């Protein structure tokens, strides 16, 4: 089937000593095979929390409602055995901060091999070795690097090891959480090159999470922008980046100016205030306090996601129908 991921009305609330904190509110998301979907937003918007539900990795103190359907089966309610089979072989993750995700005292080849052994305990060592070599070459590293320890590798190389690890069990969906945030521009380009190559070569679906809208615009087919735990805009990536409907998405894309654009010279564009604290969300539209276009009505009710043409949606009452 082409349908890979369907999230329906997903909400996640953390239960803390000081009360309930809504991290994700009523999110719908679709992802198909061979598609790259970008999930954009800043700290506190809920994007990483949302992604953690795909593999049911949310913390035990979190209460989740809604459906997370992976190939038609609800991840939130599936049995433990089904979940184990799903994790890594159905969908896998490339975590943020590769520096901390690798075990410093084990060779990287062994760490890539680990999920292979877990899913197929009887597999022969020779086959595993061959597979590890194959994976390293897919991410652009020589097979001999399997014998290296993490501290012998650079940041970009470590991130590629993480990608190789995510591919180990031939998943159909890869979730990449801020895969290039700590990397230099050139290394970032290399890693993104690897990722997009993999999607086209292997036909996997990819959910890419980032706060850098320009990176997502380049790589992804569609982008979903989150703010305060909700989806505020979604649509084709070039449109969301270049002609955003929602004021927040517009501000996010303006934060990364195009080099050569005379309008951006000596005119850095930013928003006052800070992204909202999920424990203290403003009433109505959570972006209203910072929004250049907000009016009184914005604070009275949470705006619904409305459609603006095929496959474009925005949650803002100030956007006119074209």
């Amino acid at each position, binding site marked *: 089937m082409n349908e890979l991921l369907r999230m329906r009305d997903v909400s996640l609330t*953390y239960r803390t000593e000081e009360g309930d904190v809504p991290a994700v509110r009523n999110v719908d998301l679709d992802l198909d095979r061979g598609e790259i979907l970008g999930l954009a937003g*800043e700290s*506190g918007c809920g994007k990483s929390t949302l992604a953690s539900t795909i593999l049911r990795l949310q913390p035990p103190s979190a209460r989740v409602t809604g459906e997370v359907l992976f190939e038609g089966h609800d991840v939130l309610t599936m049995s433990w055995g089904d979940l184990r089979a799903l994790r890594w072989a159905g969908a896998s993750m490339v975590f943020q901060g590769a520096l901390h995700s690798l075990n410093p005292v084990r060779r990287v080849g062994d760490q890539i091999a680990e999920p292979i052994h877990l899913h197929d305990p009887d597999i022969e060592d020779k086959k595993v070795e061959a597979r590890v070599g194959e994976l390293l070459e897919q991410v652009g590293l020589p097979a001999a690097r399997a014998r290296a320890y993490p501290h012998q590798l650079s940041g970009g190389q470590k991130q590629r090891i993480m990608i190789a690890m995510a591919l180990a069990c031939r998943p159909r969906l890869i979730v990449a959480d801020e895969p290039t945030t700590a990397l230099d521009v050139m290394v970032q380009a290399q890693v993104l090159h690897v990722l997009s190559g993999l999607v086209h070569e292997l036909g996997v679906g990819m959910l890419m999470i980032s706060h850098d809208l320009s990176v997502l615009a380049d790589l992804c087919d569609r982008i979903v922008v989150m703010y305060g735990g909700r989806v505020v805009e979604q649509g084709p990536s070039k449109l969301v980046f270049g002609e955003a409907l929602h004021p927040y998405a517009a501000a996010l894309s303006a934060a990364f100016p195009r080099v050569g654009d005379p309008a951006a010279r000596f005119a850095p564009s930013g928003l006052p205030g800070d992204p909202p604290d999920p424990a203290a969300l403003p009433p109505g539209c959570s972006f209203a306090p910072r929004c250049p276009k907000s009016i009184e009505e914005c604070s009275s009710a949470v705006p619904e996601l409305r459609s603006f043409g095929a496959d474009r949606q925005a949650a803002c009452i100030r956007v006119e129908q074209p």
Partner: protein
Amino acid sequence: MSAAQNPAAHDGSPGVPATLSARQLARRRRRDSFLRGWRLFRRNRSGMLGLVVLALFALVALAAPLLASAEGLEVTKATGGVLEPPSSEYWLGTDDQGRSVLTLLIWGARISLFVGLAATVISMVIGTLVGLVSGFSSGWAGAVLFRLTEWFLVIPFLPLAIVLATVLGRSLFNIALVIGVTSWPSTALLIRSQTLSIKERAYIERARVLGAGRWHQIRKHVLPNVMPMVFANTTLTVAIAILAETTLSFLGLGDPTRVSWGSMLEDAFQVGAITTGAWWFIVPPGVCVVLVVLAFTLVGQALEEVLNPRLKGGRAMMIGGGGGGGGT
């Protein structure tokens, strides 16, 4: 009222009038952080229990003259019989000289607690200084102090204590000195490793950029961040010091003219209280030592929890911090 005089924050926290001076601000900060720490400490039940027990013992030690006459310590004035079991007159019986064991216990608390505290002060001062300097200086001074610390750490406590006590003579101060001198290395190592990690923090470099010399960096940045560990370590060190004093007194190295729980145990042992079954002479001092040490340990553990910087993150740590692209 203008905004400058009463700026209440949108989030409801009280504003600070601009008329407060720097000193008043500093005082307020100290008071606020102390109250916050106290509130956190209160939630820890075992810590509170330890604190209550310690408070009781401290009270007893301080109020000793009120609770039991000092004359009860003098052998010549002893009125009881030899090793009498507990009765209505002598609640905990008498010792081999006819003195009330309860009186001895109350006055013994003073000595045991005092020596323990004095030894701890000596140990903490030496240990903190050595730890700070050896951690902060990267040159030969640091290396020399480190070797010195290791050397002292390796020497076995008891033989060294016995030798020192014999050489220095038997007095309260000397016991405190002996304990202090033999227990500072572990503190020094702890402080040193903490200093080493703090030295790399960005705010130390910032102080340097602002124009601070080395001493300012240590005093204003390293020390305050190391102090929590020092406090927690202190309470545990007191426990060890009291035990050490008890041990040394038990071995006969204490001041013969003063009564402490350790010396009571020594007397009890010498007169064969175990074989004669005079439990009222042995058990109370032993129990007191155990209770005090336990109480200090509980308080120390609770303090460590309170002062652990992890707690300062609060909810920010759960959601993913207030900056950067990552997080939720």
